[in-house]
């Protein structure tokens, strides 16, 4: 049975549920416990599901040179289920849990039916606060990371976007894959994973983000009770600063990576400064006007120039830097024309900026996009934890619309002129050898 059928039947059988769930989503509540642990909660009665993101500040940026992948390996170890009994227990409760490493933080996500949440959390926190870090487990996780690296390398878009990070952030944690390299993961030792855990998995360095149908006070109390075993810390586990690395002119010569694909990936990237609330809103607005869907600036490369099926732009906020990318995928014979057309579009965008009408449309579209993409609890928890991890705070979620409304034409065009200089861009092409 398809998910569509499942959803439809659920709605038709219980449409009355939507009446009881007709409450607007409340702004998030942010509290810092005595231990230093920050707890962000938001009540949402639209489903009987609870989502928790556990943020461990550090992330890719905290990987020491030559040990890329350490943050990933340690975070995986910290949630590795130690015995069969717990596996059975989690399975019976249909507990979903997963992890990833972002530029500035590791994130563990737990989601399940709210009726199981407290009990599942109790078991999970036992693992998280006393993980079994040994050679057997570390070797198994290294194998899984090698597998993830292979899957990543099979995706031309992922390879292209990663190549941009390599170019801008070479020599810092922001470069490369979260899974490290074969050589760097080989060097990661149990002692280093234990040290990483001791340094970063402390209350003062962690943030909990929960979105649930539970009352906020109830969720706050529950999280405070369950996470009281976390070690308190007074000294922040601050990773070394990265910064955008060797930002400079890459000239017109693109970085070309040979891959025997049917299409060429062509991407241009521009470094952005560290995220602030206003810069984040501006970068998302510029991303939107430049390349998010029909009517955006580079959309014509698809509909009128017929150069690509996939065209887009993406802004990536980070604590110490940021990136704005514009990209497309095209057939090898159209590659040169497509690259020139994308470069022309970017140059025109830089030189002339946006019009008042274009800005208003972009603001309306971005406001609606923000509502839609954060409708699901898991997406909203991810947004809230991203805001926390880049240092701008979950409070931006509630003020996002006001912040967006306050953006002026002058500052949008100033942002474009400051950061989208053609000479500051880096070009990457992934595709078959000629």
């Amino acid at each position: 049975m398809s998910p569509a059928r499942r959803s439809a039947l659920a709605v038709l059988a219980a449409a009355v549920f939507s009446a009881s769930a007709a409450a607007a989503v409340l702004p998030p509540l942010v509290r810092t416990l005595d231990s230093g642990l920050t707890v962000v909660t938001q009540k949402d009665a639209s489903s009987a599901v609870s989502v928790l993101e556990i943020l461990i500040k550090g992330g890719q940026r905290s990987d020491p040179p030559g040990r890329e992948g350490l943050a990933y390996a340690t975070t995986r170890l910290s949630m590795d289920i130690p015995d069969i009994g717990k596996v059975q227990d989690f399975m019976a409760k249909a507990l979903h849990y997963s992890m990833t490493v972002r530029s500035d933080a590791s994130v563990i996500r737990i989601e399940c039916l709210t009726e199981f949440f407290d009990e599942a959390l109790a078991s999970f926190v036992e693992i998280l606060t006393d993980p079994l870090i040994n050679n057997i487990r570390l070797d198994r996780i290294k194998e899984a990371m090698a597998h993830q690296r292979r899957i990543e390398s099979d995706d031309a878009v992922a390879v292209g976007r990663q190549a941009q990070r390599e170019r801008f952030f070479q020599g810092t944690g922001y470069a490369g894959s979260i899974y490290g390299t074969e050589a760097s993961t080989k060097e990661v030792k149990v002692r280093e994973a234990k040290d990483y855990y001791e340094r970063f998995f402390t209350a003062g360095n962690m943030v909990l983000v929960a979105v649930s149908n539970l009352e906020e006070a109830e969720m706050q109390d529950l999280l405070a009770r369950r996470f009281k075993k976390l070690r308190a810390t007074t000294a922040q586990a601050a990773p070394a600063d990265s910064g955008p690395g060797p930002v400079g002119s890459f000239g017109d010569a693109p970085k070309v990576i040979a891959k025997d694909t049917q299409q060429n990936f062509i991407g241009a990237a521009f470094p952005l400064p560290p995220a602030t609330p206003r810069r984040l809103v501006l970068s998302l607005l510029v991303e939107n006007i430049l390349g998010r869907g029909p009517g955006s600036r580079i959309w014509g490369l698809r509909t009128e120039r017929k150069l690509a099926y996939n065209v887009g732009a993406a802004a990536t906020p980070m604590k110490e830097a940021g990136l704005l990318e514009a990209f497309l995928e095209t057939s090898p014979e159209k590659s040169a024309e497509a690259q020139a057309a994308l470069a022309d579009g970017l140059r025109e965008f830089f030189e002339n900026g946006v019009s008042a009408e274009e800005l208003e449309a972009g603001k309306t579209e971005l406001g609606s996009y923000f509502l839609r993409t954060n409708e699901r609890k898991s997406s909203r928890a991810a947004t809230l934890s991203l805001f926390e991890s880049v240092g701008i705070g979950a409070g931006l979620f509630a003020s996002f619309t006001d912040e967006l409304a306050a953006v002026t034409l002058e500052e949008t065009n100033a942002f474009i002129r400051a950061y989208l200089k053609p000479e500051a861009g880096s070009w990457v092409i992934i595709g078959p050898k000629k």
Partner: protein
Amino acid sequence: MAVEKSLTLDNGLRIYLLERRTTPLVNIVAAVNAGSKDETEATSGAIHLLEHYVLFRGTEERSGNEVARDIRRHGAYFNAHTGQDLATFEMSLPAEHAEFGLRNQKDILFNLKITPAEVEAEKEVILQEFRQLRDDPFRYGGALVYQNLFPGHPYGKPILGTEASLKALTREAVEGFYRRYFVPGNSVLAIVGDFALAEMEAKVKAVFGDVPKTDVVLTPLEKALPPPKTVEIEEALDVQEGYLIIGALGPDYNDPDQFAGDVLAQTLGHGLYPLLLKPLRSPRNLAHSVITTSIALKKAGAFVAYITLDPKDLKAAKREALNYLRRTLRSENFSQEDFIQSEERQDAFDHLEYAKNELRFAVQQAWESGLGLANSLAQHLILNDQGSKINYLEEVAKTTSSDLRKVGAKYFGRNEYVVVSIVPKKK
């Protein structure tokens, strides 16, 4: 107070309204009962081309650029999807622009202007999409499974057509297909979001009520049969990982087996310990990950397993997975209750309990997205033949281990499979 309503306009357009005030958005999804199943040799690729054309190429009133400009100005998101049975056209926008959303949907669906130049332009874009499909191992492998799982049946036609059929497609053929199927009596509308039911009903009637009624003649569709023998396909791409995709026939949208089939798919390829990983992890570790999906079409269904693995283990993994599905599944212990000895029972995973809770979780999650709900409801209006309301979770709760063994034996034990392997190119 009622929060939902079904109605049918005089022109035959069926509409479902669901008031849901959690987010200030309105989600409007139209589904047209036309898919690749309805194409002929002359129209192969037409429905997918129309999916693109409807969104981007303009109407009698507005050019494609004007449509795109209006969409942005109103903060709307729109997209479309094509399948074997139907095509959906979705839009989500701020609640204050709901009327624009309705008028836009009406204009692009029922007032299209099909010109040779725009058809040729969109064909070029789709040729790029063909290439992109081949760069995604799972998407490409999945498409090959569907094309070979329903031999001789209209569901076996490629959803995008082929490069050759697309190049040969004429404006007249596209227009003919459009005029035949894109009519109110062959379409449905599901609207979910922040509105008052009575006001939305009045708006919908005012906007769509004047679309002329047109008779629809549909070709009857038989149930699909499984392939007479197992089809094995191997494709070499520039990949480092190995990808194994296994497809088997499953219950269709209206089949009573659908509930047990859904539970079975969960146990096989989801959660912390998917059953299909059992033969692939012991005694040798042959796979990295497995996930199974079950797709329900109107006259057929499919179970598809997606497995990632080391390419050198492909042959052994294929053998073990097929052996498990064909022979072991029919006697599998899904629940702790299946074990007689208390020690065995204590150590066993309760896959049945897991799957039931997992489906309860999925149903709850479905409530979180207005656009997702509208999409599901629009598809349901086209695919459902049963008429009456079914309580999905009650049916799932009734499912027993014995039901899973029966469904496993019926679909995996007796039928043949389609097996697609994506392997690295030889250097």
